């Protein structure tokens, strides 16, 4: 199950209404608007709770998303690139979030740095089509993955802290 914190976070993200993929011209616009609104709200929430953890931006059509995400462990901030595409069967299919930097460093990852999501994610998502959007995918998919994997990887010494200046 999703932990209490995640649940609370999810509840604070507005749900979406439009069922549309990038192929559905007008409806996609409508959907994209809702996506943005949800994302804005989510980011605002994060900032309010002092748990802001990513930066995202998209191409013009809103089909490809990229940015950075970070995790703070022992008062140190570890930062990674994040990217994903909106699949054509969206929103029935969840976007496959990838952390290319960590490709090959952990078992919980598909080729190309796509993270392995938990067993709960997919049925949860399927139940909530079309209400869940990108913001939900981030909160429900990437955030728990990072909370589990990153401290483990740091402990194993697979990833190391890089001074801000270097990035």
């Amino acid at each position, binding site marked *: 199950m999703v932990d209490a914190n995640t649940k609370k976070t999810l509840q604070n993200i507005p749900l979406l209404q439009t069922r549309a993929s990038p192929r559905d011209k007008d409806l996609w616009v409508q959907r994209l608007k809702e996506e943005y609104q949800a994302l804005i709200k989510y980011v605002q929430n994060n900032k309010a709770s002092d748990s802001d953890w990513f930066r*995202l*931006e998209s191409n013009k059509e809103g089909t490809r998303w990229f940015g950075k995400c970070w995790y703070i462990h022992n008062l140190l901030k570890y930062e990674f690139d994040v990217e994903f595409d909106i699949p054509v069967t969206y929103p029935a299919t969840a976007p496959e979030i990838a952390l290319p930097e960590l490709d090959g460093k952990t078992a919980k990852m598909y080729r190309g740095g796509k993270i392995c999501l938990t067993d709960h994610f997919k049925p949860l998502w399927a139940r909530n089509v079309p209400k869940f959007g990108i913001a939900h995918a981030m909160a429900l998919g990437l955030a728990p993955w990072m909370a589990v994997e990153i401290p483990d990887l740091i402990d194993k010494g697979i990833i190391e802290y890089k001074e801000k200046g270097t990035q």
Partner: protein
Amino acid sequence: MNQDWDEIKRLAADFQKAQLSSTLARLSERNCVEVVSLLLEKGLIELVFTTDGKEYLTHDQLRKEIEDELLVNGRINLVEVSKILSVDLQKIQPIAEQIAAEDNKTTYILGQLLSYDYIIRIASEINERLNQNGEINISELTGAYDLPSDFLLHEVVEKNLGRIIFGKQDSSNPRLFYTPAFISRCRAKIRGALNGITRPIAVSAIISQIGMPERIFFSLTNDVSATGTMTSRSTGAIYIPHIYTKTQVEWVKSFFRQNGYLEYDSVTALGVGDTKSFIQKHLSGEKLTFLNKCVVGQRIIDQIESTLEESISTSSFLDISTILPSAISEEDIEKLIQVVLTPSKQRLTQIFSNLIVTTKYIDNLLKPVYDIADINAKNSVESGAYQKYIAEKTIKKDVDMDESVSKGGDKREERRKKAAGGKAGGGAQGRETKTKSTKKHQRGGKGKDFDDSESEEETQNITSKKKSTKDTQLTLINANDIKKEIKVTLENDGLEDLASEIANYYQMQINKYAHNKAQELYEISLQNSMQNRKQNHGALQDKLNNLLNDIRLYEKGLKMFSSVDVQIQLAKYLLKTLGTEFANEVAYYVALESDLNFASSLTPQLTNEQRNRIAVECEPTYKQTLTALNKSLNLSVEEFLIAAENMLVPCSMIAKKIDKKKDKQIILTHKQGLLDQLYKSTEPSIILHVACLVIFTIATQSMLHASGKFVLTILEFLGNGYLSDEDYSLLMKFHELVLKHFKSDSEETRNEINSKLDEIIPKAKDMAANYKKIGKANEKEE
């Protein structure tokens, strides 16, 4: 469409803006926690954590909050404070102590903080309660306020006594407080209760009746001037009103005054526990006699005594129960009798249950009975029953003695002591002792051994009598006889119920009396027979001696005859007559001495067979000699004499020694006897016979024992030198006449002869009497 895309662009820009806008200038909770913990670590601040760990308080804040709580409630429990403020109790406790220490109006006790206001409040509450109940106990308050009693007492009640709490502290129990109104109410109740009581009542009953705690009751009863006393100061006590005691005493006094006695039961029924001392106390002026069930005054005793004296003086009887109140029990009557009967009076009276009978009365009553006893005793002695009884007892004694001897000397000594005691004892035994002494005197001549054994037997009889009265006592008179005898007299006096009692009581005594009587009679008869026997023995001894002597002398006489034939015949005759007599006497004596069962049927004249039978059956001491004696009768005189002398020894007789002088004397007396006979007798044959014997005796200076048969032989012997011819022819003529006289048939010839004899007899008599030893002189001359 474009418009939409513009909007998208704008949203994307907004999104970027939102993302890029710096985060708020405030610390997140996480950071705050970290910062505070860092500060605490460095000791820069001092804080108190709440129990959930989400909040911090400064010490001042905590103290302030505790004080606030105290202000609101007046009394707070630190545990509750810790819950309300979610601060650990350990943190609160020192602060609470601090508060109490700094502020003297606040009290810290048992983990609770109390404000001054609170104390004032409970003090007024207590006052209210006190006014309501009239009485209050600190221990009750402890329960009600959940505060320690010492605190309540010293800090709350005592401090406010007279200011807020108006009451009185109990002097004996400082934890008790009363209102004066309550006290006086209780006192009034107690006074009422106690005054109303007229009989003893358990204090517990009084207390439950007036509904008052017992300690108040007990502390107040002293103040109340009660008209009674309490047995103790505990719940088990009994309150006894004076009026009750007074009525008791009055009842006891008046009852006693009226009736002269007082039953314990009735006094106990009044509720008096220790009746005796009670009576003694309240009737102290009286002379009291305490009995088992009642107490009797001097009046009743005087009455009994006077009646008793009267009955003694008139030798009648007195039934005490008739003059006593019916309430007095039998047992007490007996006791009373004991009191009344002084030893001097006791001697004069006999008690049968309630009846005091004077001894004089009884003596009169029993007089005929004693007569019967006398008769019975006599009868028993005469019939031999008593002797049998004595004999049986003696046999028993012998057995006892054998046993005791085999057991050893100790017992014998014991018995001797007992015997001595028996002798010393008064009454009947005294009499016996006396008889014994006389007996001894009478038997002085006897052998000492014999006497001793006899006396021993005697004492044993006494002891055995004492010892075995119950088992072997011969009943000479039984209770029924006595009863029958006295019943008539008693019936006249209306006392027939007592007949058997008196009979049983006196049976022993009378029986004993009868025994003594019997003993007496028996002893008298015994003495008589003993005396007889002794005399007999002596006489017999003399007689036997005389006989023997005679025989010896006669034997000498018969030796005068020259003819052996005559000698043998004379000897035979001698043995047949005198020898047989001797043997008969001895045999008879032996038969008596040996207690042969047929002895009583014998007479001194015995046949030969009887003698032999005695010889066979007599006691072994006599047997041999007696048998020899019997045999010797058929032998010669010498042998007989030896046998006879032997015979005397076992008969404890002494054969007198042959004394020549005495022999002469005997011969002289014999001659005198013969002369007397000669003068007296008128029968011619006897005269002739005696005359011959006299002449023979004088002539030979020896005695002759011969029958008439031998007259001729004697005459012939005398004629041969002892008689003058004249005398001889006279005697021969006399002899012829006598013979003729015997042989004569007709009356005539007899008369003729008689006349001739009459002539010749005086001559012959004279001749015999005047005969002097001519022959001898002649012989001498010759």
